[in-house]
């Protein structure tokens, strides 16, 4: 069966520091991969999605970037974090466009 792993579960970072959040999927090949952010009291906002290695689509302009160096690895990064980057970050995968997305347990990011 397929599983998705995100780490770390929580992270506290100072403003201006870099960020790297990692997500890996096991048990499937060539999944679609997604990064979402949930701000306090709001729904999930799609940040990035990828349909293959090296293929990244950005949904909203922001201080973050994503990379997919391997088939089942998706990384969310920033060179300099802002206070507004605080939130709950979720990685998800799906088998294809017509299939449900399945989420990891998320990373709670707090910027001080």
């Amino acid at each position, binding site marked *: 069966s397929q599983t998705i792993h*995100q780490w770390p*579960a929580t992270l506290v970072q100072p403003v201006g520091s870099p960020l790297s959040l990692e997500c890996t999927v096991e048990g499937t090949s060539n999944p*679609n991969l*997604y990064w*979402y952010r949930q701000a306090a*009291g*709001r*729904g*999930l*906002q*799609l940040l990035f*999605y990828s*349909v293959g290695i090296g293929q990244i689509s950005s*949904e909203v302009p922001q201080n973050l970037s994503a990379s997919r160096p391997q088939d089942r690895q998706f990384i969310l990064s920033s060179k300099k974090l802002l206070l507004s980057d605080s939130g709950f970050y*979720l990685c*998800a995968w*799906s088998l*294809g*466009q*017509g299939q*449900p*997305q*399945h*989420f*990891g*347990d*998320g990373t*709670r990011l707090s910027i001080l």
Partner: protein
Amino acid sequence: DQQVKQNSPSLSVQEGRISILNCDYTNSMFDYFLWYKKYPAEGPTFLISISSIKDKNEDGRFTVFLNKSAKHLSLHIVPSQPGDSAVYFCAARPGNTGKLIFGQGTTLQVKP
């Protein structure tokens, strides 16, 4: 512009009764709708979905209804159980994409 709206931030229901969660959308190009359930500090879990060519889909205690003319969908949980207490998100997919647009979520509390 909120394309998917869950206008009730919270709902409280007695155990054994029906829970009805509502969701409205504005984009007529959405062709696939999903409901997710989320517990605190966890990622959302896929519950049930419906294609725009259907008006009802049932899975055990969960039934999703779609009214395309009203651009409205609802999730019925019968009978409600205390373990159903969680945040419920509806999501919609624009046709021929892998992206999902999420609502803000509704917190359901099922009282024993």
